[in-house]
């Protein structure tokens, strides 16, 4: 992200900033996710644009104070558009030495670190593998360090509350930190107080204690001379409407709920837990009241095959997984393609290959999604690009599957799935219509592979419909009767018609658009979850006066938008940026061999950083 510029020194001690990145870090038990979420929600309600990213330890109960037990939550808030959780941070709140040690690299020089000095005990320093106390050895000279005895101050604030145990007291120190940060950024603690009262409705003592500590932190910051400044971040210009902060995986789940309601079908999910896709299962199992049938199967194969069964029986059927799980679903996906049933397969990509980097993000399952099946077996492949638009693309995946009678693979990734951002809430009424191909009539003269002339989709006769009894299966079928056929010409015909059916989907998807320059020197190409980073970098260059760089981001990958070639032809250089070793670049080379596709790839399990993108793009731009 762009380094926030100082706009004006409105009043002494108060700076007005366009955007700021804050990271809360501490032990798994320190409540950092809650603290971060509260700051995010409060800022969003204030009108800021926000983007967040959590960083959990992979161990479930890592030893207290250890380096690998650090839990973090980063939030980027702005009065300007905010598209990523940000790279480097303006403020680090470190609740223990391990948190400081593992996150110091991200703090911009000269910027602020708040630490709980009480936690910098000899024992904790040792656990964090510090040889000397960083608060004393001068190693933090380049930062503005605010040392606060947070644990003691929390205890002090609660000394008058009777009947509260020690553990609850220390556990509320995150509220002290949050109170301080609220004061620093001119945020009212009211929203959080409300939240605490609701959350601890049945434990009024805990609610009271947390509120007390939150206020104590707030007033402590106000009176503290150590904090010379507070900062104002004005509301951002956002489209009017009702918003909520939504996680990518929740948005995906909700997109399916909306699609089921709109199409009038019941939603069936067959799934087997796998990081980082499991939260979609966690979300959908809650919604039995909408008739959602969420089935946790014995493995990924049963996840997809149960969904195929449900699709056969007339449900909107989906299965959710991540890379290794998609590999297991391969054979069944081929069956769904062959029997031409509607099915959505969500792959929340993570670092591969094999078990790879389960908790990190990557875009390396693209070729698996496109080609990872036996035989000629094309399916629709689309990708969401932000936490909020996971909703739109889950909806769209359902619509395409139902209207074109085909499996659709929806790619998201760990980065957008676990990130959150404001979502302008959509009502089901404002979503596009979803048709389905269910049969009508009495079944005379009907064959299972009769096709719609426009889309080539076959019709959908579900068990229970009188007169349409029929058999489908993985063996090749006669193009007319739908019976098993080994006739050579028929197989070739059917192979081509299945390919043509997917190709024709290009007539039903939006054109590719460019942002910033529509023609010129450099076209930046991305797909999926890298949208925020690429958009932010190109925008910064444009703001710096470069007006010959354009940006085209793909959400539709198979088939590609019809106007893709036309857009490629408008730029002198094309650079395809991906978090893999060049998979989409390969695909584009297959389709558009007359262009040269330069690549910018990162394969570290991490999102793109702004600086590396800017640097790369500058190299490509004319001097």
């Amino acid at each position, binding site marked *: 992200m762009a380094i926030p510029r100082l706009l004006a020194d409105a009043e002494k001690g108060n700076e007005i900033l366009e955007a700021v990145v804050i990271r809360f870090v501490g032990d798994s038990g320190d409540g950092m996710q809650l603290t971060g979420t509260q700051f995010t*929600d409060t800022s*969003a*309600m204030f*009108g800021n644009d926000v983007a967040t990213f959590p960083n959990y330890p992979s161990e479930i109960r890592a030893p207290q104070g250890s380096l690998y037990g650090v839990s973090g939550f980063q939030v980027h808030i702005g009065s300007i558009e905010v598209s990523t959780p940000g790279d480097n941070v303006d403020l680090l709140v470190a609740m223990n030495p391990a948190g400081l040690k593992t996150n110091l690299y991200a703090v911009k020089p000269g910027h602020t670190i708040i630490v709980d000095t009480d936690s910098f005990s000899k024992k904790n320093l040792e656990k964090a593998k510090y040889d000397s106390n960083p608060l004393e050895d001068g190693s933090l000279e380049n930062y503005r360090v605010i040392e606060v005895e947070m644990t003691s101050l929390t205890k002090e604030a609660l000394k008058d509350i009777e009947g509260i145990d020690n553990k609850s007291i220390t556990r509320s120190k995150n509220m002290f930190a949050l109170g301080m940060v609220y004061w620093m950024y001119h945020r009212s603690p009211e929203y959080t107080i409300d939240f605490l009262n609701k959350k601890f409705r049945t434990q009024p003592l805990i609610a009271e204690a947390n509120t007390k500590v939150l206020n104590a932190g707030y007033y402590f910051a106000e009176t503290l001379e150590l904090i010379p400044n507070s900062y104002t971040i004005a509301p951002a210009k956002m489209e*009017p*409407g*009702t*918003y*909520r*902060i939504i996680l990518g995986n929740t948005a995906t789940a*909700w997109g399916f*709920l909306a699609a089921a*309601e709109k199409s009038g079908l*019941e939603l*069936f999910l*067959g799934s087997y837990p796998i990081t980082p896709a499991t939260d979609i299962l966690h979300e959908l199992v809650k*919604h*039995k*009241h*909408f008739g959602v*049938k969420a*089935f946790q*199967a*014995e*493995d990924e*194969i*049963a996840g997809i*095959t*149960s*969904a*195929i*069964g*449900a699709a*056969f*029986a*007339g*449900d909107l*059927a989906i299965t959710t997984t991540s890379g290794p799980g998609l590999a297991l679903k391969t*054979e*069944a996906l081929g*069956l769904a393609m062959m*029997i031409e049933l509607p099915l959505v397969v969500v792959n929340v990509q993570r670092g591969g290959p094999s078990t790879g980097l389960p908790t990190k993000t990557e875009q390396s399952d693209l070729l698996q999604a496109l080609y990872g099946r036996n035989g000629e077996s094309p399916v629709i492949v689309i990708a969401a690009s932000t936490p909020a638009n996971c909703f739109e693309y889950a909806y769209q995946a359902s619509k395409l599957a139902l209207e074109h009678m085909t499996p659709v693979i929806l790619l998201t990734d760990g980065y957008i799935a676990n990130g959150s951002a404001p979502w302008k*809430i*959509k*009502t*089901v*009424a404002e979503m596009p219509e979803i048709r389905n191909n269910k049969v009508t009539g009495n079944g005379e003269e009907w064959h299972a592979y009769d096709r719609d002339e426009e889309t080539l989709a076959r019709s959908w006769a579900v*068990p*229970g419909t*009188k*007169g*349409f*009894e*029929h*058999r*489908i*299966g*993985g063996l090749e079928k006669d193009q007319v009767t739908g*019976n*098993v056929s080994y006739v050579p010409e028929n197989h070739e015909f059917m192979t081509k018609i299945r390919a043509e059916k997917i190709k024709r989907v290009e007539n039903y998807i939006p054109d590719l658009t460019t942002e910033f320059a529509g023609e010129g020197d450099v076209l930046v190409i991305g797909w999926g979850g890298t949208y925020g980073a690429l958009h932010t970098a190109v925008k910064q260059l444009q703001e710096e006066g470069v007006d010959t760089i354009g940006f085209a981001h793909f959400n539709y990958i198979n088939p590609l938008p019809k106007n893709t070639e036309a857009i490629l032809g408008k730029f002198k250089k094309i650079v395809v940026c991906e978090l893999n070793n060049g998979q989409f670049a390969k695909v584009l080379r297959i389709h558009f061999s007359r262009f040269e596709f330069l690549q910018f790839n990162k394969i570290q399990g991490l999102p793109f950083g702004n600086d590396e993108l800017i640097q790369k793009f500058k190299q490509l731009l004319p001097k």
Partner: protein
Amino acid sequence: MMETTTEEKYMFKDFVSDQEVRWCPGCDDYVILRSLQKALPEMGVRKEDVVFISGIGCSSRFPYYMDAYGMHGIHGRAPAIATGVKLANPDLSVWVITGDGDSMAIGGNHFIHVLRRNMDLNIILFNNEIYGLTKGQFSPTSLVGQKTKSSPYGNTQPPFLPGELAIGAQARFFARIGGNMPKEMTQIFIEAEKFKGTALIEVLQNCVIFNNGCFSKYTDKTVRDDQQLFIEHGKPMLFGKDREKGLVLNGLKLEVATIGENGVTQEDILVHDAKEQDPTLHQMLVRLEYPLVTGIIRSFVDVTLGEREDALTAQVKADSEFTKTDDLFFSGETYVVK
């Protein structure tokens, strides 16, 4: 079991599809097909509500020959596909068609889990102790020493006993029947459909090409009466040409006793209780080598997955503040930008 009864009266031929049956002449698969086509009109189900789901194998071609809804799936996965069908539409009568390799080798995982869950499904296991479709390799039920294309010197892997595995995986209904006993088979199919829960029927199916005669010592007409005990719920476990032999319990072992010998009377013979929850005796019956026990060995009525799910869904619906997704989307922490 289907609640819906039909106005229409079906005949055997209503379930015969227009596809030419392609099994080898003499294969027991024909017997199973005809028995089921005969059983279906007796079940009171509507034809459009009947669904056959199979995996891959000779046996798994079965759905093509049935005029009903059907899916020829992928190898081993039929129980999972069927689970999805039944969860999507609980009103359907769903039948899984599988072979010994399909269900207990590649599909072993789905097989045990479908039994554990106890959905209201029927599973017909065509056990021919061989891989038929791939032309004669040993299967998980092939005997030690059995010579097959992939065990030319004799099979070294000990077999599963399907009933033992199934009851171990909590099968509530298990029946075993010879592939040459269409009358009894038809009756068992009807009972399986009536049973609420997963009903597993193992058919001892002769493969004339790759494992001919594998069950003859039990199933041949000449030896059948002496080697097989066809049991029925509530009846004494008697067998033999003159029903002179029966099973008694001696300590922890089943033994064959002859009425009139050693003071054994009709009263000493065990009476079959298929509905007993405790599977101990059912397991002993499954494992018995002489006589081979056939018929409905276990039929214990238990809560089905569907019943559990329905109850839970009704409860959640009653407690929920949401009726439309909009209610959910606008619930909780939202804010307005003007």
